[in-house]
């Protein structure tokens, strides 16, 4: 290990910060998924869609499925967080937001080091991921 450190092969500071945020985030995400799934299946909170109807409809295409189950698309699930089934989306969204959060830390580090090319790449990535997450693309058609 000492040999490794001497040769300067240690991960950069931003890489370590990225990893630290990720490890905490992933465990929170997994715990969230366990908890919300438990609440869902135990019936502690009522479901928006009857569980039997889901298993009858999961062979349909997504457009038909949303129609049959009266489920929202985009960020519509946020309004249904009081329902056990839609509560599960907290875990999914958390995991899918992790990369954006980590990139924000990267941008800060790159700007501090005046690494403009990588700052630009990281900012562009945040924009791309935010666009995908926004629901502006691909959530129509329902």
């Amino acid at each position, binding site marked *: 290990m000492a040999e490794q450190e001497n040769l300067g092969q240690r991960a950069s500071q931003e890489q370590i910060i990225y*990893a630290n945020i*990720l490890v905490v985030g992933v465990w929170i995400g997994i715990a969230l998924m366990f908890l919300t799934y438990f609440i869902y299946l135990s019936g502690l909170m009522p479901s928006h869609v009857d569980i039997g109807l889901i298993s009858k409809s999961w062979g349909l295409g997504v457009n038909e499925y949303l129609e049959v189950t009266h489920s929202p698309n985009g960020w519509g699930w946020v309004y249904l967080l009081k329902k056990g089934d839609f509560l599960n989306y907290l875990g999914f969204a958390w995991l899918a937001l992790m990369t954006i959060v980590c990139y924000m830390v990267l941008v800060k580090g790159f700007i501090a080091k005046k690494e403009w090319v990588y700052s630009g790449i990281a900012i562009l990535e945040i924009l791309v991921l935010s666009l995908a997450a926004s629901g502006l693309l691909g959530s129509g058609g329902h």
Partner: protein
Amino acid sequence: MLNTLIKPINRLFISLAVIVLSCPVGAFAAEQAVLIGGDKPWWYWPIILFVFCLVLGVLAVMAGVGGGVLYVPLVSGFFPFHIDFVRGVGLMVALAGALAAGPGLLRRNLANLRLALPVALIASAFSIIGAMLGLYLSALNPDLIQTCLGATIVGIAALLIFSKNSEKPVVTKQDAIGMALGLGGVYWDEGARESVEWKTHRTLLGMFMFIIIGLLAGMFGLGAGWANVPVLNLVMGAPLKVSVATSKFLLSITDTSAAWIYMNRGCVIPLIGIPSIVGLMLGSLVGVKLLAIAKPKMIRYFVIVVLLFAGLKAMDKGLGLGLLG
């Protein structure tokens, strides 16, 4: 110190999994063995899916492939779920696995941020286009996407058979783009007990290939490790260890953008998603333990045969031939 912390967490994790995932059986089996659709109660497929994903997770680790590439063709071929949901969940499965593996790879400096960032930007942007195109095509005709998925999976199996990755590719001269982006580094090879210096070449060609990788990953909901590794290693000249680790880290970015498109479209059903993610993650943990005593080469061949069969089955289903049942 870390190990002493991780062990009880692992135990707790596994116990919780058993409690949560056996909950449907305990709570509902007696009163809700209502026959739905054909002859199966609602909890039947999620439980089968969990066990299936557990096995898949073990195999994926030992064969050195991502979970997503096995999950999508097999689950779409053998489970009653529409391919829209299988692709959406497949991306979440690949994303969860990549996020979980990311910290370790970054800390050990095996996954290289500088190598990952530019290609991740390209792949993630194009995976959005791929996801939108895939959803459009499956709305037109799901058989079309099933057939194309089958053909892609057969191609992936062929790639796994014929591509000969290079442990430490020789890069005599770095190209201008690679140099400008600082694509290179040094890592410590624990096995060889030596420090390995590396740099890239053919960076532009490699970046172009990430356009195709992004499109395919988004369109079919596959993690793209099967394509990332050969491009980083054989085309761009990154060492195999760096390529494998950077590829895994890359998935956490590429799959995030495509996963959002599928999630916003309504393609992630928790009843299917959580057993899949948890099953594959637990399976991966078991797989890592078994790796020490198993023969990965044999398992890799087995997985390639399974992939070939899954690809042919998807093509068979998409073309409506009915030759494979």
